[in-house]
């Protein structure tokens, strides 16, 4: 088990390195100069030169890369070009916001979708199944950002029930925090529901076909017991993988929903940093996103055997 974890961590090193190199090179290939952006339309040639020097942009690329890597290995993510603040604390703040929204959404989606998928599988090809499957396909087909806009239009503006501006952290003020989270979470749940539901249904159908379920039935166990004790626990493991993948993808890719609801999350932070060519911040965000993706996958894989006794790590 421990050996497995260590091996997995070692295996992710080349990936992380490749991510680092790619981000570094891509950002420098992209046209646009951070110093010029800071100075704007006022023609101050000397000041731009000074800024470039301070930012270390006049050094050869390899020197810049090695300096960045060296600092990273000591846990130093550098400072933002734009406001000179250390990259890491801001990054973690923003990550907390994204993680809050995404974790709640995926959890909620799973709580709704997993049982529904199992029910659909149990009643496979009956009308209940058809209704559940068709609804989930419809939900999958609604773009989250569009449903976000519609929610704002209806509940934020027309009805005025929910705040559409700003953000309050759950840890600062629980009730107000919840008010701010309702709409983004609703939009994300709707978007992710379908994928999880289909996986849960497919996995359950797969399990129900296996011999031991037939055995269990033959032994005269009640249908409820068969489902609860034998079918569902084994069907959950593959679904967990999909939940993990969804979580991993959303942690890095919630930028659209953050834009719609003006949440100060990581995706928004990344877009802002890219448009102001804040290289250290972009690089930091990318590494954090890649790391969280790898970690979520690792944790999912570690949890897998808990739900599927056939798998041993």
């Amino acid at each position, binding site marked *: 088990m421990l050996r497995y974890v260590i091996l997995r961590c070692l295996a992710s090193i080349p990936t992380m390195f490749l991510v680092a190199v790619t981000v570094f090179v891509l950002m420098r290939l992209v046209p*646009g*100069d951070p110093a010029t952006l800071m100075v*704007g339309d006022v023609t101050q040639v000397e000041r731009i030169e000074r800024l470039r020097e301070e930012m270390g942009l006049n050094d050869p690329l390899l020197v810049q890369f090695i300096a960045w890597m060296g600092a990273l290995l000591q846990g130093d993510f550098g400072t933002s070009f734009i406001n000179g603040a250390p990259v890491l604390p801001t990054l973690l703040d*923003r990550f907390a916001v994204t993680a809050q929204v995404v974790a709640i959404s995926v959890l909620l989606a799973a709580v709704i979708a997993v049982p529904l998928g199992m029910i659909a599988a149990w009643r496979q090809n009956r009308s209940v199944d058809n209704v559940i499957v068709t609804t989930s396909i419809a939900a999958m087909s609604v773009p989250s950002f569009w449903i976000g806009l519609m929610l*704002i239009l209806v509940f*934020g503006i027309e009805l005025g029930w929910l705040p559409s501006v700003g953000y309050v952290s759950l840890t600062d003020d629980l009730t107000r925090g919840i008010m701010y989270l309702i709409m983004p979470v609703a939009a994300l749940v709707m978007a992710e529901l379908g994928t999880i539901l289909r996986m849960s249904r497919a996995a359950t159908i797969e399990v129900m076909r296996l011999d031991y379920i037939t055995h269990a039935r033959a032994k005269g166990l009640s249908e409820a017991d068969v489902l609860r004790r034998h079918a569902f626990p084994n069907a959950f493991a593959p679904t967990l993988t999909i939940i993990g993948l969804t979580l991993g993808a959303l942690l890095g890719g919630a930028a659209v929903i953050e834009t719609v609801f003006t949440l100060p999350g990581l995706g928004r932070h990344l877009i*802002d940093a890219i448009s102001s060519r804040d290289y250290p911040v972009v690089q930091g965000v990318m590494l954090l996103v890649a790391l969280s993706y790898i970690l979520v996958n690792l944790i999912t894989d570690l949890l897998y055997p808990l739900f599927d006794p056939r798998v041993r790590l």
Partner: protein
Amino acid sequence: MKKLISASTIALICSAGAAVADPEFGGIAKVAMKSDILGTQPGVDRDGITDTLLHHIMEGLVSYDADVNVQPLLAESWEISEDGTTYTFTLRDDVMFHNGEPMTSAEVVWSWDRWLDLETGWACTDWYDGTEDLEILSVTAPDESTVVFELNVANSLFLAQIANIQCLTAIVHPDSVDAEGNWVEPIGTGPYMLSEWNQGVSVTIERFDDYTPASGPASAYAGERIAYLDAVEFIVVPETATALAGLQSGDLDLVDQIQPNDRNELNPDLVTIHEAPSLEWNVLLMRVDNELMSDINMRRAVALAIDFAVLAQTASSGIVGYNPSTIPEGSVYHTAVQAEGYERDLEEVARLLEAAGYDGTPLQIQTNRRFNNMYQNAVIIQAMLAEAGINSELDVLEWAAHLDNYFNGQFQLSAFGYSARTDPALNYRSVLGEDHPAFQWYNTDAIAMVNEAAVIGDPERRQALFDEVHRMMIEEVPTLNLYNAFTIDVTSNRLQGYQVWPAAKPYLWNVWIEE
């Protein structure tokens, strides 16, 4: 067009007159800002939003009034020597810092030393260190209430420069920095002090109770500035659409700089709209060193293909008209001469195109979507050029790339815009120059005339110079001025006394809340 402007101005004055009520102390106003502030050190951590906020906390010796004239703020008065190189400021004796210490000439000298020190990283040192023509040779304090600035040359722009909004020449208490000289927090003299900065979310400022306002009538950044509000919360709301929704649902009290189109979505019963002409100006840049555009016939063809009145009307929803001059319409130097521009003439365009040997190659118009006005201008100009037989394609870039190309002169046509400058000489210096590709117009005579206008103080002579430069510009067509921007701010109905002004900077003193 002119008529429209004055009509709306009158309407504004009337509504302002009708709404006068006695100011009340108390309450908290909530203001939307498009992005978080960059920091709290003026001129160092700066962008438009940071500037707006820090001007509530810190003040300089002089400041702009609502007509963008320089007025005293922390200074009581000033004297200029005969030769124009010595400025002697007398300080007010009733000014207190947020930490309770009185302001004296020592802090003024300390502050100026800090900003001019290259180590500080202040954004506008170029203006004062001889990089451009002006250099401050020394800032000294002969006594507790007097500060003397020695300049290398006479310069009519000096007061305007120290009143500038971008690099607030703030007088701060030395305790604003730690022992190593690192910036800690702003201890200024403003009507508000910094209360809480919740990074990425909001900044709260609260009233400074020991504030003594300057004498003189309240006028924008100058005169009697009184904080009636207990506090102001600036909330990060990147999207205007969301901000306006928040304004109408009562979550916000002020959203500044909205687009003309956005007005239509506002319910007039819930909000008050404030409009004022601004000093920013929109342009269509034409690269004179580009192969095709180096031919003046081609540039004139483009100029005469555009219906500038319709362009301004459409892009601004009828708020502003065509301004052919680099000098903003609101300026005292904007006269009948500055109003002379180009008239659309499609037959002449055809002749010019023939003379230029134009073969139908599409022109590339660079623009971006970050600034909606630039994008709109490009779309409209493309349509107008097409009607005149000039093919063109939009090249929609990301703002960073667009700006980079502007700065390096890498474009054929570019729908661009300039931020506010507070003197016509500064306006012209944005486009006129010869040693850098970011300049659009290389003409040594014009450069000499603008340089002269930057030094002398005589308004008549300056006017004559600016008029001549404008005529030359229309003749040579190095770049096309389109129209001045308008600033449109929206407030909730409970926020009273709010005023907009040409610098387009919202301020939250002399406003109060009435439920």
